Every structure is written in structure tokens, then in C-alpha cells.
């Protein structure tokens, strides 16, 4: 035996090398890999600081960890988790697991701005080795927990900068939702955060994974792991567990593409972790034998120079963090969210949780648990270790035995399987399946047969699910859930975590406190209906205010008004809300990273909306509206309004003109109704807008990029705000000049300008009518006539008085154009109207309704108002020629003369001798009785 095969693993190494020679075409390469695996195990075990390899969401790891902690009672635990997350771990006791530790940064400094906001989550479940380590360390006096992995800032620092976005950066992360992602609320609990977790262990490339799945005769990686690692290791002793895990870590490490970016990053992380541990050991002077380093099995087989505690290792320089300010908190997580984020099989985390509970019961152990931790189980805190620390013993080869031994019968025991079969049938019946006891028997039998076919001594939960699908699923799914989903529910179901009140950020606590008068338990995950009768109970008014702010800040389904609204100047006296704050805890918590109260966050958001590089005048006006509606802070409104004026003056396009017009009109109406005087910013906005749009009008009408809607809105602003602008010191000449300088070419804009000139009194209606008649008469122009018409329709906004003319124009067009031109033109007309004037068409229809006859009977006699002969000029008013009133006025003309003098029209009195209407006079003279009776009545009245 040579030196290479010496040591505890010499025999195994020799055996593997011989196997490589016997079976491989090129034995050197294979021998290198196989012997390398053993070398890695040998090397990891030789480090004086005990390395404890784990895999994520592995009950076997958690159980081994629990046993080891009890036996060894380490004084220091080094954990592979971002070091800056450490202060949060104590807060876990206030939460119901699973929750995720989160680092969040909205304002980036040193990272590409387009990556923001950055979010990193590390989900923690009860059945994980890391939770056992954390609970042990935090609950045992004198034990220190040190997180040694790179900070969250480094997660992004180490990303290649040329990547478009950091979807799955860092180590320990995998692509989410390959096939495990389930749509739904619970699956999306982490949002688009980047996931980090301890002990990620997966084949390094797709082909290897596919190979393992194919030959393992399983469908998913989680199933493979469960069958080939999890179950055999479930009851393994510490040495076996450790050696096997390092071996697997080494296998996946060696079988992966060389020089991949991911491997480089992993190696940097290992350098980082070992450097941090060395620093801590040097600073604290703790004996490495009293420490435990908990890391992914992958990192236990590391080859970096810093690995181990040898003194001659080169120093690794840790780069400083960027200036990005990180916020930390806990957010709720769920089994399905973890499965979706890390690409695990649906239900695998739930199965792991169930396996963990079962393993604890079987082994008669109690897991470590943080004091005050809420959860499904009500057990007391972890039993304190009583055994003394065990001295480290020499390394013996446990691998040979493990690798050579046949698989232990694991999986389900018969009683458990029977229970599941009965339960799945009951669950299926509740979900509409016609399942019976016979199905339970069939599922039982099929599960056992399937396990036999798949080389398993006993059925696994995956076999059970397949059997249930085979026996119960028929041609259609009767309800919402199919049998596979029911199996997932049965095998533990999705568990959703919750962050307790004490672990919430101040803002979230404040929100819950302020909503307490509603009398609802808002931490529940159900949607709750809140009824607010603000008239009867004015104490609820602050709750209503807060709810409206939350409505603005949170996702739409978090708080949803069912009844009641809040507009400018309008508040409902009764409101009803659907509140789902418990389900949207993450959004509320992330809001807490932005400030300490909702008002502060809202103010910041509104300010940011008007100060950002993308800010526009219409956006600023929207912010002003929100500020009035939600905050009622004149100071902020003035500030935002002033910014709106600045933005408007600086704008070089008029794209937002319709929006600006709509919003400023609404705000002006609000101020007119509620305030004695317009605020300064509002006056400023009107004068600035008047000048701004006058200036831009000549360019806008010729600019091809500017639509007719925008020009219409500009003119709408100029005409409808004119009186106000003039009263504030603007000059009308500016507008007249602007109109005179405008020389549009597009037909629609030409029509708009004609309307504007008409409004200014520069183009009488008769001339406008004549121009349009010319257009209709000219067949070369007719195809573009709809464009003119759409211009006129847009002109209804600035010149509402033009509506009868537009109706006339359209009627004329329909009447005069011959069918060959009219019919192809109609679709163009409709599309033009639909595209350019959706909100003005109703106005047009109303006017048409007024103009055209309402009934069929009147249609024959109907003459269009514009076609009717011009009526003879009528006298100023009916002239009463006789009677007591006339007599009174003739007798006492002074009062009327005085009024006329005051009004400045010195009228002359006219004699009523010459009757204007001969027929009336004749009628009255022939039948004077009625008139005389009226006169008598009037006389009696005055008398």
C-alpha cells in the first residue's frame, strides 16, 4: 500500500481506484475523481474546527444537527448565512415559521440603478438544520452564533455588471419555478427577491441531474434526494452522516463545469467565510474544538487556500461594502414560496416538515426551539443538553460500510400508509370525487406495488401520490383541486408563516395600532370586512384616512374599498372595506423600510414622484391631488404645486396636455368650492400654462409628433382658462399672435385652428360654413374630410359652442356625398372618431339628439335648422300696447327713466299707436272680453 492509500480511507480509496481501472476507458480521469472524493472527505474531517455539512430543508440534516448539538455543546457556531442578517435572528422568536429574513435596499449606491430595488431573502423553516443551530445558540447561555457568509451587499457586488438584471445571483440560489412553481398567493410570498439558503446541493449541470433522475427512476430532484440520501441518512450516526454528506458535496463539486462564474463566486464565498472564522477565532481566543461550522455540504469539500486553520494560508482581502443603505426585516414565507423560489418539487418542503416531526417522535427527541416561538406544535422549548461535551475521537472509515450496505427499509410504515389512504379518500370525497373505501384499499395496494416496481422496500410519499392519482383520478376533475394537489394538502399542506407583532417594523406596528378601533384581527390571513359609519362614530375617521393612504401605498388587494370613495372635496359618510393585511404582510413590512409612519412614506413617495428625472407636470398635478385627497397638508400641496409649475414651464412637449387640462380643471373647481382664494401655485400654474401653451402652439400645430388631441387640449386650456389668466395679468394678444403664427398642414389641425379663430371672433360662422362647403364640393379633398371632422370634434373641447355646427357639417356630408365616396368613407370616419375623440363623441351625439327630430312622425316635416329660411328680425320683446301696466308706466315714467339712466341707455318712449301685429290687433279688437277680464283682474290685484 502506497502513501496515497494510507489513512483511515486507504482501503476505500484503493477499492475505488481499482474499480476505475476495471471499468473506465480512461481510468486516470475517473480514478482522479473517485480518489478525490475520498481525499475531500479525509481533508474535511482533518480540520480541527468541526465542519458540519448540511443540506437545505433536509430533516436528516436537522436531526443530525440536533444530535450533534446535544452531544458536543459547542460554544461558538459559525453559520453560512449573510453576516449582516445576524441582528434579525433574535426576532424569529416572535414569528410563526416559515418566515424569511430579508435585506432590502431601494436607494442604490454602488450598484447599477436599474437593478433596484434590491431584495434578498433567506427563508427559515423549523425542520432545517440552521434553525436548530440558531435556536440552540440563542437559547443556550454562553453560546455565540456568528454568521460568516458574505453580506447581502456582496451578493450583488459580486454579480457580473453586464447582466441585464440580477434575477438569481449569489450562491445558494437556483432558478425559481422550473416546474415547482405554483401560482397563487402563497407561492408569490417572496415577491421577486433573490433567495439565499444554507446548504444548496444540486448537480452542477442539467445533464448530470437528468442522468441521476433517469437512473434513479424518479421524476424530481427532491424525490431523488429523498430516496438516495435523506432516507439512508435518517438514522445514521454522526460520523457516517458527516462523511457521506462531504462525499456528496465533493461529488457535485467535482462534477461541474470548470471555471464557471458560479464556481468562482462559491470559492470567493468560501474564502470569505474562512477569513471571517479565522478573524473571530483570533479575536475571541476560543478553542476551535469548541466550535462548529455549519455550512452546505458543497462548501465542506472546498479547495480554496484559506480552507482549514493552517497558519500559512494567504490572507483574503474582503472588499468594503458599497454605500447602499440596507434595511432589514422579517417577512412571512411559506412552503410553496420556498419550493417555487428554489425549484423544489411541489410539496417537498411540506413532506420534509412531516418527516422531521415523525423522526423526532421516533427518536424520542425534542427539537430546539426559540422561547416564545409560535407554531403548530405546542411543545416546550428544547430540552437542554445534559451530556457533557464529547472529546473528538479519531476518524474511522464509515463510508465503505455505508456505500456497500443495502438500503435500509425506509419510507412509510404500514399503519401510516393506511392512515393516508383513508384520509386521501375522505379528502377526495369532500372535493367532489366519488371515492370510497374500495379506493382506499386500491390506493394502498397500488402504492405498495409501485414501490416494489421502483426498487423501494416501502412506498414513499411520492409513490403514495402516484397511487392515489391512479386509483382515484378519473376522466374529469370534479372540483377545484385534482388528486395530486389533494395529496400535497394531505402530506402536510402548505404552511404559511407569520411575522409576529413584536418583530414588525415600527410602521407596520403603527398601522395595526391605528386600525385597532375597527375591532378586527388584522393579523389573520383571511379577508376581513370593515364597516365604518363615520357619521355615527367619528372616532373611525382617522382609520378611514389611514385606509385611504394604505390603498394608495399597498398592492390593490391589500385594502380594497367596497363602498365609499374619496375624491377631491368629497368624503363618504359610510365606508366598507375588504382588508387583507395579514395576507399582504410582506408589502406592509417593506413599506416599513421606507419610513416610520405611513404619512411620512406617502410624503416621500409624492415628493419622489415630482422630483425624479421622469417627473412631468401632469404627474405633479396628480401628486397634488393625492396630497389634498389623502394628507390634507397645505404645505406639501404648495410645495408639490410649485414643482408642477416648474415642470410645466420646463416641458418642451405637449404630450400630457390633455391630462394637465383635466387635472388643473378639477383642482381649480375644488379650490373655487373650498377656498376663499386660489393658492399662489395655482395662479402661477394658470399664468405659466397660458404663456407656455401660447408659446408652444405654433410649433405644436406643425409638429407631426404632436397629435390633434394634444393641440385640442392646449386650445382648451387657453380658452377655458382665459378669463382667469387675463385676470391674473396675462395678455390676450399673446394668444391672438400665437393663433396667427400657427400654420398647420394636417387637416385635423387646420380644422382646430379654424375653430380657434372662430372662437376669437376672427372667423365668422358663415365663412366657416362656406369653407367646409368648398371642401365637400372638392372631390380631391373629400377623402381627407374625416380628418377635418375629427379636428372639429376635438374643437368641441375648447369651443363648445361649435357643437351645432359640427352636427350640421356631418349631416351635410352624409346628405351631399354620393354613395361611392360616402360608403368607403364611413369606416374611416368611425375609426377616426374612435381614435381621436372617444370622450367627445357623447357630446356630439347629445347635440345631434337635440337637433334631429325625436320621432318618426315629425321627420317628414322636419327642416334642418341650418336649412330653414332666416327668420325675420323680431322686435326686442313683446310690446304691450294697452292695459293697466302700460297705463302705469305712461303715467309714472320716472322710475324706468332712472333705471335706464343708471344703466347708461337713455331710451326714448314710443307711442303704442302703430300695432306691430295687425292680426293680433284685429283679434283683440273683435274679442275684447278676455283682455278686459285680464285687465280687470290685474286692476283688482293692484287695487
Amino acid at each position, binding site marked *: 500500500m502506497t502513501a496515497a492509500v494510507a489513512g483511515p480511507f486507504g482501503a476505500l480509496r484503493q477499492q475505488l481506484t481499482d474499480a476505475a481501472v476495471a471499468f473506465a476507458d480512461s481510468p486516470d480521469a475517473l480514478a482522479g475523481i473517485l480518489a478525490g472524493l475520498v481525499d475531500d472527505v479525509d481533508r474535511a474531517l482533518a480540520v480541527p474546527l468541526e465542519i458540519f455539512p448540511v443540506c437545505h430543508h433536509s430533516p436528516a440534516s436537522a436531526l443530525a444537527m440536533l444530535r450533534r448539538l446535544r452531544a458536543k455543546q459547542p460554544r461558538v457556531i459559525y453559520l453560512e448565512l449573510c453576516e449582516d442578517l445576524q441582528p434579525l435572528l433574535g426576532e424569529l422568536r416572535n414569528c410563526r415559521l416559515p418566515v424569511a429574513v430579508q435585506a432590502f435596499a431601494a436607494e442604490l449606491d454602488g450598484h447599477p440603478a436599474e437593478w433596484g430595488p434590491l431584495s434578498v431573502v433567506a427563508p427559515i423553516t423549523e425542520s432545517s438544520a440552521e434553525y436548530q443551530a440558531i435556536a440552540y445558540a440563542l437559547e443556550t447561555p454562553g453560546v455565540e452564533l456568528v454568521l460568516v457568509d458574505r453580506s447581502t451587499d456582496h451578493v450583488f457586488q459580486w454579480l457580473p455588471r453586464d447582466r441585464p438584471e440580477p434575477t438569481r445571483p449569489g450562491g445558494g440560489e437556483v432558478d425559481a419555478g422550473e416546474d415547482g412553481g405554483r401560482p397563487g398567493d402563497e407561492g408569490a410570498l417572496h415577491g421577486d427577491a433573490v433567495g439565499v439558503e444554507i446548504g444548496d446541493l444540486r448537480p452542477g449541470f442539467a445533464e448530470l441531474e437528468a442522468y441521476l433522475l433517469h437512473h434513479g427512476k424518479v421524476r424530481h430532484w427532491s424525490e431523488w434526494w429523498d430516496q438516495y440520501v435523506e432516507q439512508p441518512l435518517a438514522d445514521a450516526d454522526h460520523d457516517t452522516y458527516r462523511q457521506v454528506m462531504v462525499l456528496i458535496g465533493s461529488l457535485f463539486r467535482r462534477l461541474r463545469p470548470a471555471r464557471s462564474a458560479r464556481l468562482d463566486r462559491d470559492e470567493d464565498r468560501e474564502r470569505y467565510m474562512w477569513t471571517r472564522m479565522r478573524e473571530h477565532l483570533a479575536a475571541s481566543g476560543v478553542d476551535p474544538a469548541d466550535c462548529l461550522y455549519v455550512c452546505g455540504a458543497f462548501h465542506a469539500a472546498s479547495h480554496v487556500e484559506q480552507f482549514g486553520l493552517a497558519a500559512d494560508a494567504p490572507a483574503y482581502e474582503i472588499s468594503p461594502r458599497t454605500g447602499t443603505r440596507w434595511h432589514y426585516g422579517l417577512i412571512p414565507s411559506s412552503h410553496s414560496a420556498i419550493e417555487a423560489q428554489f425549484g423544489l418539487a411541489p410539496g417537498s418542503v411540506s413532506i420534509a416538515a412531516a418527516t422531521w416531526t415523525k423522526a423526532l417522535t421516533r427518536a424520542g427527541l425534542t427539537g430546539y426551539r426559540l422561547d416564545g416561538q409560535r407554531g403548530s406544535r405546542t411543545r416546550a422549548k428544547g430540552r437542554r443538553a445534559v451530556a457533557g461535551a464529547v472529546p473528538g475521537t479519531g476518524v474511522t472509515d464509515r463510508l465503505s460500510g455505508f456505500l456497500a450496505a443495502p438500503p435500509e427499509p425506509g419510507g412509510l410504515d404500514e399503519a401510516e400508509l393506511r392512515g393516508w389512504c383513508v384520509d386521501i379518500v375522505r379528502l377526495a370525497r369532500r372535493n367532489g370525487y366519488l371515492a*370510497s373505501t374500495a379506493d382506499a384499499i*386500491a390506493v394502498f395496494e397500488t402504492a405498495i406495488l*409501485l414501490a416494489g*416496481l421502483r426498487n423501494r422496500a416501502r412506498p414513499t410519499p411520492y409513490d403514495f401520490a402516484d397511487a392515489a392519482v391512479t386509483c382515484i383520478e378519473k*376522466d374529469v376533475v370534479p372540483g377545484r383541486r385534482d388528486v395530486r394537489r389533494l395529496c400535497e394538502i394531505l402530506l402536510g399542506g402548505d404552511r404559511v408563516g407569520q411575522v409576529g407583532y413584536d418583530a414588525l417594523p415600527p410602521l407596520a406596528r403603527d398601522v395595526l395600532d391605528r386600525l385597532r378601533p375597527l375591532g378586527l384581527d388584522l393579523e389573520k390571513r383571511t379577508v376581513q370586512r370593515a364597516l365604518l359609519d363615520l357619521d355615527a362614530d367619528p372616532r373611525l375617521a382617522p382609520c378611514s384616512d389611514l385606509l385611504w393612504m394604505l390603498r394608495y401605498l399597498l398592492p390593490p388587494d391589500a385594502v380594497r374599498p367596497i363602498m365609499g370613495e374619496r375624491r377631491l372635496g368629497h368624503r363618504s359618510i359610510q365606508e366598507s372595506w375588504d382588508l387583507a393585511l395579514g395576507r399582504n404582510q410582506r408589502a406592509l413590512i417593506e413599506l416599513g423600510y421606507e419610513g416610520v409612519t405611513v404619512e411620512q412614506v406617502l410624503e416621500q413617495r409624492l415628493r419622489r414622484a415630482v422630483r425624479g428625472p421622469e417627473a412631468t407636470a401632469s404627474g405633479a398635478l396628480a401628486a397634488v391631488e393625492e396630497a389634498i385627497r389623502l394628507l390634507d397638508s397645505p404645505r406639501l400641496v404648495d410645495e408639490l404645486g410649485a414643482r408642477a409649475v416648474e415642470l410645466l414651464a420646463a416641458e418642451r412637449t405637449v404630450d400630457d396636455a390633455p391630462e394637465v387640462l383635466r387635472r388643473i380643471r378639477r383642482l381649480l373647481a375644488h379650490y373655487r368650492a373650498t377656498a376663499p382664494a386660489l393658492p399662489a401655485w395655482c395662479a402661477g400654474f394658470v399664468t405659466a400654462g397660458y404663456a407656455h401653451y401660447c408659446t408652444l402652439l405654433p410649433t405644436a400645430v406643425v409638429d407631426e409628433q404632436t397629435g390633434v388631441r394634444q393641440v385640442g387640449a392646449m386650445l382648451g386650456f387657453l380658452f377655458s382658462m382665459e378669463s382667469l389668466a387675463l385676470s391674473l395679468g396675462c395678455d390676450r394678444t399673446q394668444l391672438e399672435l400665437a393663433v396667427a403664427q400657427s400654420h398647420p398642414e394636417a387637416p385635423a389641425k387646420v380644422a382646430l385652428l379654424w375653430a380657434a379663430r372662430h372662437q376669437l371672433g376672427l372667423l365668422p360662422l358663415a365663412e366657416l360654413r362656406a369653407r367646409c362647403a368648398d371642401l365637400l364640393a372638392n372631390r380631391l379633398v373629400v377623402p381627407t374630410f374625416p380628418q377635418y371632422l375629427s379636428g372639429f370634434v376635438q374643437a368641441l373641447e375648447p369651443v363648445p359652442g361649435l357643437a351645432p355646427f359640427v352636427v350640421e357639417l356631418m349631416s351635410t356630408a352624409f346628405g351631399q356625398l354620393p354613395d361611392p365616396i360616402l360608403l368607403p368613407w364611413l369606416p374611416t370616419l368611425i375609426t377616426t372618431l374612435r381614435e381621436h375623440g372617444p370622450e367627445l363623441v357623447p357630446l356630439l351625439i347629445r347635440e345631434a339628439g337635440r337637433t334631429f327630430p325625436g320621432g318618426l312622425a315629425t321627420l317628414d316635416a322636419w327642416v334642418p335648422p341650418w336649412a330653414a329660411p332666416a327668420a325675420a328680425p323680431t322686435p326686442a320683446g313683446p310690446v304691450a300696447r294697452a292695459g293697466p301696466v302700460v297705463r302705469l308706466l305712461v303715467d309714472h315714467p320716472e322710475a324706468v327713466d332712472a333705471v335706464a339712466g343708471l344703466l347708461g341707455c337713455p331710451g326714448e318712449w314710443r307711442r303704442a299707436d302703430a300695432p306691430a301685429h295687425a292680426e293680433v290687433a284685429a283679434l283683440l279688437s273683435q274679442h275684447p272680453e278676455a283682455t278686459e277680464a285680464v285687465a280687470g283682474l290685474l286692476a283688482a290685484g293692484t287695487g
Partner: protein
Amino acid sequence: MSEMLRAPAEVKYADELDYLESVDTDPKPFSWRLSPRMVRLFVLGSERADGLDREIPQKWFGDRTFVERSIVTLASDRGLLLIGDPGTGKSWLAELLAAAICRNSTLVVQGTAGTTEDHIKYSWNVSMVIARGQSRESMIPSPIMTAMEQGVIGRFEELTRSTSDVQDALISILSEKYVSIPELNDDNIVFARPGFSVIATANSRDRGVNDLSSALKRRFNFVRIPVVTNKRSEAEIVRFRTEELLRRHRIELEVPPTLLDILLQSFADLRTAAAAATSDDEKLESALSTAEQIGVLEDAILHSQFFGDRMLRAETLAGSLMGSLARRSPEDLAILNKYLHGVVEPRAKQDGGGWEGFLDGGRQAIAALS
């Protein structure tokens, strides 16, 4: 074997089955000729890791779990109902399973609108009844009854095509496992021997025609076979079946890989279009299954062999594809025309190669059909 146009699986793969039987040491349920593991191996093919002396080729292409679930169902008390779109390989899987389990895949009842209870149970040889009276000798057992007597697998093709009362004749067979013959005074019950089970197939497109009763559904385990959409698997299936066909016709003709790609791609395109269609008029009547691809290719090969220059060309393939898929006029023709001009034409311009010929052939075929 050489006398048969199409040999059943147990005859065709007799060597393999003999070999597997000889090396099978695992326990076998009932009177099965092979253990469940070997049945799976026969259907899905062997790998090096199985440690066999000879290679067993894969015969059915699809998810392994479907086969496993089917096998364990047959080993249990229930019948197996393979359900899926036409052309997904249900009958082929049923035949392979029956051949592997009992070396007899020919005990088949074909479900049609004219199937009667006699086809499932038994009927009488009228002349013998007149001559000798009713006896077991004058009785004609159905394939299902024969399967019961022999303890083997009986097959029922297109179960949902037969009427409900006929279907329900299976209920007692599947639950009591015997058929009584009231016409006889003694020896009037035929008991099923161990190993008897039924593999039925049903077309999911026939749903609603003759739905199974709940009682019958309970006695079957359903295994739904989806349309193969994985391109690699589909290529495997087409290649496998085409080779078989060429062998059967003794045709020396090579299918160029590019043409196989074109065929697979065109079906994939048409399936995507069908999935996106909002009404039946916008999707082809065809299920676009793998079997139809094989049919298209078979058609093209035979055409090339007998009417062409013994070389498979893209034009011929296109003609065969259009001819097979254009079942309704004008709906299917319009969809194919749209496909030709919207998808194939740009691709022919961009990639050239076989797509140009495919486009020409398609145009000619549509012109001829219109």
C-alpha cells in the same frame, strides 16, 4: 411470422420475451409470464445499468410513470383504462403490456356502436344448438371470456364507442370475476383464473358520446396518456415506427433528418396554432397526434416509392401533410393556407433548405384540393 402483414407484439418480439423470461428472477404476480419490472423493461427498453446480456429496444415512448402505473394496476384488482387523444399510443401500449404479461395480445373486443353484450360474454353456434342443444361445446366464448378462462389479459378497444348497457356488462366481469351462463343447467359459470384483467382504451375526444357509468369507472384505474409534445421523444417515435414500416414494405429508402425535422416542426407549429385558436373553425379537425405524423410520413414514403423517384422529397411530404390534415373544406384548407403563407413562407426565405420545397409542395397540394 413472414406470412402476417402485421404480427402481434408477442410474435414480433418473441425472442426478446423469451430472453426476458429466461433471465427474470423476480417474483411474478398470478400467472404472469414476466415480473412487473421486466414488463417495464420490455416496454421502455433496457439500459446498461440493467445488466442484461442483450439490449432491449424501447417500444413505447412516453413518461415512465404511465407505464409503471399501468403495470401495477394490472397487478391489482382493477381494470386499466388508457384514455387520451387519438394517436397517442394507447392501443400500442395495451398491446405491449398484454404481450409482455401473458404472451397474448389478440383477445380484443373492438367497441363500436354495434357492439352487443354477446361480444363481451358469449354467443351460440346456432347450427350446433339445433343439432345438439345448448352446451359448452355449442357456446362461442367472447375474447373477454376466453381471457377469463385462460387467466390472461383481455383488451377492449374504444370502450366509449359502445353503448352504456354494453359497457355495463363489464361491471360484473370486473367485480365478481365470473360470467354465468343461465342457458346451461350445469357447468354454467365461467370463473376467471388468476391473472385475468382488462385493458380498455378510450378516446378523450369521444367524451359525452357514451359516458362510462360511475359503477364502471370505479372498477377501472384511469391512466391518461397525453399527446407527446417533447420534440426529442416525438422524433424517436416517428423514427421507430417508420423504420418498422419500411421493413414491413421492404422499402430501401432513407428519411433525411432535415425532412424529419420539418415534419416535427410543422406539427409543433400547427399544435401551437390550435392551442391559441378561440373557436373550432380556427383549429384543424385533426388531433395532430404523433400517429398522424407517422401516417403523413408513411404516406409520403409510399408515394415516393411507387410514384416518385424513390427519394423522399420535401414536396412529397408537404403534399402528404396537406392531404392528411385537410379534412374539412374550406376551414382546414384556410388554416393550412394561412400556415403556409404566414409561417412556412418566411421560414423558407430565411432558412431555405427543405422548407422551400415544402412550401412549393404545400401550395400545389392546396391548389389541387381547393
